[in-house]
C-alpha cells in the first residue's frame, strides 16, 4: 500500500476550534435539550460529543412556567418551559461531579434577570475549572428596564456582554435571539462588546391555537418554536452573521441529521448545536457525528475544516 492510499484510509479529522477551545468534533447539544448531560448518558458516551452544553443556569433556582408547556406543531414544537433550572449552587453541588468524568469540554449556558445577576453568574462560572466556556443567553427580559429583552436591543445587549466579559475568565459565547429585524446589528454589537463566539439562533417566538377549545395551546400563550420547521431561517441568519463578524459562529436551528449540520458548516458555521432532535432520537448527535465523518470520506476530505465556509458563489 502506498502512502497516498494509506492517508485515504485514515479517519478524517472532525476537530474544530472555537474561541480557543479545541473540540473533538463540531457537534454539541443546544442548551435546554440535554439537561445537564445525565439524562442522555445511558444512551451513548458523552465524550463522543464536541462539547456538552448545560441547561440554562441562573443565580437562583427557577421553577419555570405553568403547564401546558409544550405543543407539537408542523415539523417542530413550541416550548415555554420558563428556563426551569436548579440554580448555580445546586448545579455545582449536584451536577459537577458527573460532568467532571468527561473529557468533552463543558459549556455552561446562563442567564439573568438583571445586569447584576448576569455579572454575578459570570463571576461564579469563572470559579469553576470544570467549565471550559460560558454561553450567554440574552433572550431574557430585563426586569429592571420594563422587561425589554436584552437580546433585541443592541445597546442593552452590548451592555450585558461587556459586563459579563469583564467578570468572566473563560471564552464567552453569546447566543442570539432571531426575534429581531436585523440579526447582523445584534451580532456586530455583541462582537464589539467582547463576545469570543456567537451562537445563533435561539427559538423563534410562536403561538398555536386549539381550535376545538378556542384556547392557546401553551399556558404561557407564546413559546419558542424549534425543530426542522425553523432550519431555513436559522441557515439564513447564520449565513448573514458569518458575513458580518470575525468571531466564530455556532449554528443551531432544526438540525436532525448530518446533511442539516453540513448546511450550517458550508455557510460558515464553525460548529453546530442539536436541540429538538435529541428529544426525537436520543442518539441524534452521535449519528450526526458519524454522518459528518462519512461525508468527509465520501468527498475525499481529511479535515472537516475544508467544509466550513466552502459555499460557492453562484
Amino acid at each position, binding site marked *: 500500500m502506498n502512502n497516498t492510499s494509506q492517508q485515504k484510509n485514515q479517519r478524517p479529522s472532525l476537530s474544530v476550534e472555537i474561541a480557543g477551545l479545541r473540540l473533538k468534533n463540531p457537534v454539541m447539544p443546544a442548551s435546554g435539550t440535554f439537561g445537564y448531560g445525565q*439524562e442522555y448518558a445511558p444512551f451513548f458516551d458523552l465524550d463522543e460529543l464536541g462539547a456538552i452544553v448545560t441547561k440554562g443556569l441562573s443565580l437562583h433556582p427557577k421553577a419555570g412556567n405553568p403547564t401546558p408547556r409544550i405543543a*407539537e406543531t408542523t415539523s417542530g414544537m413550541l416550548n415555554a418551559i420558563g428556563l426551569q433550572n436548579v440554580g448555580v449552587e445546586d448545579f455545582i453541588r449536584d451536577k459537577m461531579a458527573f460532568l467532571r468524568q468527561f473529557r468533552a469540554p463543558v459549556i455552561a449556558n446562563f442567564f439573568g434577570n438583571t445586569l447584576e445577576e448576569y455579572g454575578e453568574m459570570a463571576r461564579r462560572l469563572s470559579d469553576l475549572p470544570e467549565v471550559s466556556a460560558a454561553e450567554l443567553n440574552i433572550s431574557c427580559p430585563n426586569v429592571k428596564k420594563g422587561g425589554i429583552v436584552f437580546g433585541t436591543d443592541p445597546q442593552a445587549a452590548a451592555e450585558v456582554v461587556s459586563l459579563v466579559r469583564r467578570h468572566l475568565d473563560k471564552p464567552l459565547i453569546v447566543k442570539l435571539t432571531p426575534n429581531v429585524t436585523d440579526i447582523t446589528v445584534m451580532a456586530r454589537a455583541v462582537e464589539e462588546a467582547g463576545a469570543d463566539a456567537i451562537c445563533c439562533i435561539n427559538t423563534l417566538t410562536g403561538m398555536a391555537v386549539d381550535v*376545538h377549545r378556542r384556547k392557546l395551546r401553551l399556558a404561557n400563550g407564546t413559546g419558542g418554536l424549534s425543530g426542522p420547521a425553523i432550519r431555513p431561517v436559522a441557515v439564513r441568519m447564520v449565513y448573514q452573521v458569518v458575513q458580518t463578524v470575525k468571531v466564530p459562529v455556532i449554528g443551531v436551528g432544526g438540525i436532525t441529521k448530518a446533511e442539516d449540520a453540513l448546511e450550517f458548516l458550508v455557510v460558515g458555521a464553525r460548529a453546530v448545536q442539536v436541540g429538538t432532535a435529541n428529544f426525537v432520537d436520543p442518539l441524534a448527535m452521535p449519528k450526526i457525528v458519524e454522518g459528518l465523518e462519512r461525508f468527509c470520506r465520501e468527498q475525499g476530505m481529511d479535515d472537516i475544516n475544508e467544509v466550513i465556509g466552502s459555499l460557492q458563489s453562484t
Partner: protein
Amino acid sequence: MQNYNSTVLSNQELSPGYYRMRILAPGYVSAAKPGQFVMVRVRGGLEPLLRRPFGIFRTGFMPADCEGLPDKEYVEILYKVVGSGTSLLQDLHQGDRVELLGPLGNGFDIHPAAEQVLVGGGIGLVPLYMLARQLVKGGNVRLLMGGRCRDDILAVTEFERLGVATYVSTDDGSLGEEGLVTEVLERKLAKYPRTNVYACGPTPMLRAVHELCRTRKVPLQVSLEAFMACGVGACLGCVVKGAGHSESDPHYLCTCKEGPVFRAEQLEWDLLEKGHDDCGCTEEEA
C-alpha cells in the same frame, strides 16, 4: 432503558377505536416494571415529529418463527386512536418498523396487603395489568373498571385469567353496572377498609378516587399521563404541580422521570390540571 428500531409483531383492534400492538422488545421481560412506559415513533419522516408515550400493558415471550431460535421477547401497548401519532400506529402491520425507547419512568411501589384494589378508567387500565400480575401473588386483587360505554371496557378477561376479581361499570349501563367506577370503589372501601388502591384514568376520576381514599386514609398510587417531548427528564415539558405548590413557591414534578406513578400525597390535587383525557396516548384530540 434502551432505544432501538424494532418490529411490529401484531396490531389488532380490540374494540372500536382501541388497538393492541405487540412490538419485539429484547430485554423488556426482565427490565420493565409495572407502571413504566415506552416512547414510540413510527420510523422516518418529520410528521409528527415527536414520539408518543404509551403505558406498558405487558411483556412476555412468544415462540420464535422457526425451531432452534430463541423465543421472541415482546412488549404490548394498548392505545386509543385520537390524533396524528396514533392514526399512524393504527395503520401499521406485522413486520413494520417502529422506534422503541424504554422502559421509562418510575413504576408502582408494591405494598403487600391481603386486599388490593385497582381502579381503571378506559385506556387507564393499561398500567394495571403487570401490577395485577405481581399483586395476585400476595393477596386478593380486585379490578374496578369503568368507561363511558362498553367499547371503553378492555381486556377484562385477561385480568380474570390472572385470578383478579373484576367489577365493570359504564356511564350508560351498556356493560356491567350503570354508574361511575368511583361508586363501586366507595362500596369496596366500606367493605375492605384495609386495602391499597392503585388507579389510572381521566383526571376527574382520579380526583374522585383520591377524595375517597383520603377520607378513608387508604394509601393511593396514581399513574398520570402528560404530553411530553423526550420521556427522559430533559425537556421539562411534562411537569405536574407537586404537593405544596404555590405561585410564590412553585414545585413541579416531571411526569416522565419522577412519575408517571405518584403517591397521592406527592401531588397538589386542587391544581391537578385536566391535561389528560382518557385517551391513553396524551395526544391532542384530532
